[in-house]
């Protein structure tokens, strides 16, 4: 194989890799949207978080010494739970939480595009990094759940950039 042929092959590799990662991202987003539509939990911790959100909505402050009702375990800060407890189109108990997490994932992608644009004026590197980020297990498995983590990551990264 000549040098020119090898170069062409490797350039093709990059394009195929990007194509496969776009395919991967579409698959992840399909599962995320499917999960968003489920009216029940898709991961056990979601129940605990959704219950805390329901308590906020009912006017309770879900921080206590577990010595009288409501007695719940709440190791999280107030920002995510309070935001989810606001009535912005609640279709089911997990809707607000999952939607907020998906929006936070989009914010994270925006951070990467911004970071790339700041450095070179182009967003190409940011697009590839976003596709790569979606292949990370913690992101594709937890990024859409009614859990506090994705919002925390998005805010931290936004602060960092």
């Amino acid at each position: 194989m000549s040098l020119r042929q090898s170069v062409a092959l490797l350039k093709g590799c990059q394009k195929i890799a990007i194509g496969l990662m776009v395919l991967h991202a579409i698959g992840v987003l399909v599962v995320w949207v499917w999960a968003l539509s489920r009216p029940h939990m898709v991961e056990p911790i979601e129940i605990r978080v959704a219950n805390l959100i329901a308590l906020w909505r009912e006017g309770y402050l879900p921080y206590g010494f577990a010595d009288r009702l409501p007695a719940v375990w709440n190791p999280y800060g107030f920002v995510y739970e309070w935001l989810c407890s606001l009535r912005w189109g609640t279709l089911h108990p997990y809707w607000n939480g999952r939607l907020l997490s998906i929006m936070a994932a989009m914010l994270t992608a925006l951070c990467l595009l911004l970071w790339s644009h700041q450095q070179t004026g182009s967003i190409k590197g940011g697009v590839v990094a976003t596709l790569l980020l979606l292949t990370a297990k913690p992101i594709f498995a937890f990024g859409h759940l009614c859990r506090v983590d994705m919002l925390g990551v998005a805010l931290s990264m936004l602060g960092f950039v």
Partner: protein
Amino acid sequence: MMVLAFHVKVTFVAAPIACCLAFWQNQRHRAMAIGLLWAVGALGGLALLQWWTKGAYLFQAQLANTPSLWTKPIDMLTRPLTSSPFWMLALLFFHRSQRKLLSAPESLYCLCSLIVAGVTSTNPGSSWNYLMEFYGAIALLTVRALNSLPTKELTWQLGALLLCHALFSLLHTSYFMAKDVQKVIAYVPAYQRARSRLAVLLRDHPRLLIFGSSAGMDALLSFGKANLLDLPDELAERSQALMRQALQAGSIDMVLFGDDLKPWHGR
């Protein structure tokens, strides 16, 4: 933003530490200003919340979160190597060819988030979510690496590694997502059973308490009601004492126990 992140979960401290370290090299005053502002916002907010909740805020943060599994960090910190080997390899490759990447702010952020993940993962309930911020930092570092490709040769090698990563990820993600979806589908009948049982019971007993049943609690939430009791398993005895008290005082109508949602009478 970093202050808000801290109030989402108190473990989000890697970004402000990395910012301070990055600025410390050239702009010490700026580093100190960022650190001070963050400390005022985060720790001041924490003190305010402690006062507002009469000390329960921090009590809750550490409840059932005590470090106990000291071998867990080893498992946690090696996970990126086993779940995204080609991505990590590509970054190591970059670090070798471009030494200045090592001192980039993103590298400091990766290091800080990895240390935080290592320390916090000693609690028994830690899982993959502890690595989310690390992956965010890795993505930022990837942006810098991609934007500073020095030679054409490196671009080709990166292309090959990217292709390996994409192929690996398609299989890896499909496997885990299919497993998760299967679990959810298998759970639906239990949720629907609990929902039909609660639909009948809630008519006569609006103040219900569910104990020891995820499907039951999930179903209660679907009726727009919160469960007033949800303590970790370690505090099962305290949960039972609270249920007994509430039943005796008449502040709740009924306690339902276990996946069959049987009435619980205090024994």
